[in-house]
């Protein structure tokens, strides 16, 4: 066991932090209030290589690993949960499945621009009737001559309004159940594909979460991702990776909230003392810090297991379960330490509390994570 972050990773953490502090933090409140997608920062991140961290240089990536990627999501999320999830959804849910399951042609055509940040990615599994029960896909794909025809709709798709490339799942054989689901690479401009309404969300309000509509959408035959009928497995294994990203987002939100609160309680005076001098404040923050460090170890462990090509599904589930519940808990407690001011938009803590909640829901609810963990334990 080695719990020391090596110099290479630390140097990049410093780089991510510098960018987050100087470019992301100053606009975090504004993009939350206006629901404006932070395109300018996505472009800057692309230039810096932040949109292709774990992919090899020959694929257009930065040649680093999952650990460095989750550290990037963590640093971004410390100041802005929205920016964290933009990078996470793009990297884990769109670029990664193409890297893992794509053909050489697909990697050249789609992974390279994604990893270089020239294109932004999204992932479309959820439907109005298929959330946690992802097997209930209603979107269908039919092979007609040399192309697939997709019909149906998807909802709650992160990055949708800004993305160029989508991983879309659809039923290719209804009679086969989950074994009848296949994955496709869909470009923004494909005929019959349109972006529907944008959701008005509680948190991560600038991440452009929209509906996707497929009306006789024409997808070239060669844009099938993986094999016919293997889409459900592909989606599930992709979500394992995604969960480490979301766990890192949750971790970052908790750390950011603690950082802000430590500053606040060191300045805020009540009863003639700084509120940091009250033992309740000290103990609250001590507990939060300890739990957040525990979550961090789980997140980093899951990332390292993925980098070492070990089975990490259960570790990703544990990391996400613990980190997301911790993020909600920590941000709520931090807001309590702020008191009334924390409830206003003059301080970032209410935004952090709103951003934290989604980490318990998307890419598998906490209940799904517990199903994965108990299944791995053999508790049936």
């Amino acid at each position, binding site marked *: 066991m080695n719990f020391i972050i090596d*110099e*290479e990773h630390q*140097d*990049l953490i410093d*780089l991510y932090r*510098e*960018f987050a502090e*100087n470019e992301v933090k100053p606009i975090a409140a504004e993009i939350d209030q206006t629901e404006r997608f932070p395109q300018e920062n996505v472009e*800057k991140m692309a*230039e*810096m*290589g*932040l949109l292709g*961290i774990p992919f090899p*240089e020959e694929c257009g990536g*930065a*040649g*680093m690993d999952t650990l460095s990627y989750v550290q990037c999501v963590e640093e971004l999320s410390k100041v802005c949960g929205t920016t964290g999830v933009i990078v996470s959804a793009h990297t884990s849910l769109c670029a990664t499945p193409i890297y893992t399951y794509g053909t050489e042609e697909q990697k050249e055509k789609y992974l390279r621009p994604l990893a270089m940040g020239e294109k932004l990615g999204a992932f479309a599994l959820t439907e109005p009737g298929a959330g946690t029960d992802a097997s209930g896909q209603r979107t269908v794909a039919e092979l007609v001559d040399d192309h697939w025809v997709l019909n149906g709709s998807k909802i709650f798709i992160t990055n949708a309004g800004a993305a160029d490339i989508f991983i879309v799942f659809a039923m290719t054989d209804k009679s086969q159940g989950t074994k009848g689901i296949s994955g496709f690479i869909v470009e923004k401009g494909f005929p019959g594909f349109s972006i529907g309404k944008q959701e008005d969300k509680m948190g991560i309000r600038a991440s452009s979460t929209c509906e996707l509509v497929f009306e006789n959408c024409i997808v070239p035959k060669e844009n099938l991702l993986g094999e016919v009928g293997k889409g459900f497995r592909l989606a599930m294994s992709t979500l394992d990776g995604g969960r480490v990203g979301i766990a890192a987002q949750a971790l970052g939100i908790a750390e950011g909230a603690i950082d802000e609160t430590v500053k606040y309680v060191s300045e805020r005076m009540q009863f003639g003392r700084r509120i940091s001098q009250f033992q309740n404040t000290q103990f609250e923050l001590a507990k939060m810090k300890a739990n957040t460090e525990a979550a961090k170890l789980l997140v980093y462990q899951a990332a390292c297991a993925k980098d070492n090509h070990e089975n990490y599904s259960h570790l990703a589930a544990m990391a996400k379960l613990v980190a997301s519940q911790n993020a909600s808990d920590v941000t709520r407690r931090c807001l309590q330490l702020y008191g009334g001011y924390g409830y206003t938009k003059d301080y970032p803590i209410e935004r952090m509390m709103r951003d934290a909640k989604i980490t318990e829901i998307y890419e598998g609810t906490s209940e799904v994570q517990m199903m994965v963990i108990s299944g791995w334990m053999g508790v049936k």
Partner: protein
Amino acid sequence: MNILVCIKQVPDTNEIKIDPVTHTLVRKGVPSIVNPFDTYALEVGVRLKEQLGGKVVVISMGPEQAKEALKTCLSVGADDAYLISDRKFGGSDTLATSYILSSAVKAVEEKEGLKFDLILCGKQAVDGDTAQVGPEMAEHLDLPQITYALDIVYEDDKIQVKRECDDGYDMITTTLPAVVTVVKLPYEPRYATIRTKMAAKKKEIPTLTFDDLKTDEAYCGLGGSPTKVKGTYTPNREKNGVKLNGVEANDAGAQLAEWLQTNKIL
């Protein structure tokens, strides 16, 4: 265009601590950064290189740890970096420092096999705030100098420099080679990318010592430094000063003189 950028590693703090005995900066326990004005000088240099071709080389005089600052420069566009370091250089004031750096220019030119067309410095370092090293280098090297530059445009073997001054800008043209010091720019220097950061980490930074520079020891280090610091203190912050708002510099000067006379200070 081949460009040399002189940079200094400074403590990353607004509360500079000074050793009460030696009157030198306390560096221990304070994180270090590249002097912000030097990062602007580097950005100007890198943009010129991108436009015109050539090379950007950075040098810094300081202890071994100043290599960290040089690595930072390598990650944001500098091609090569050299550390100028020797025990004999320790305790140098601005005159000795500018003398040593000027000697280093020639040594680096030999190592690189090129001649520098332009030498860039930040207008001043945020720790000492003297703004002397750049201009003194120009004197040692007998080169034209332009201070407080906001922008440099190259045309027909000359540069036109936009110089910041109290009442606006001066546009000054000079032949090359020249020394230019740079102020805070209207844009921020670029970020490192993951690739440039990793490449900078692996790159070797040679150290040039006293023997490499062919300098006269009498002009180096404490012995070569005519500056004698009698004492240092942090000035008290006071809020009851008189502020002359919305007044041209000339009128403000006259008003100040009048005020000083009225109050029998002059």
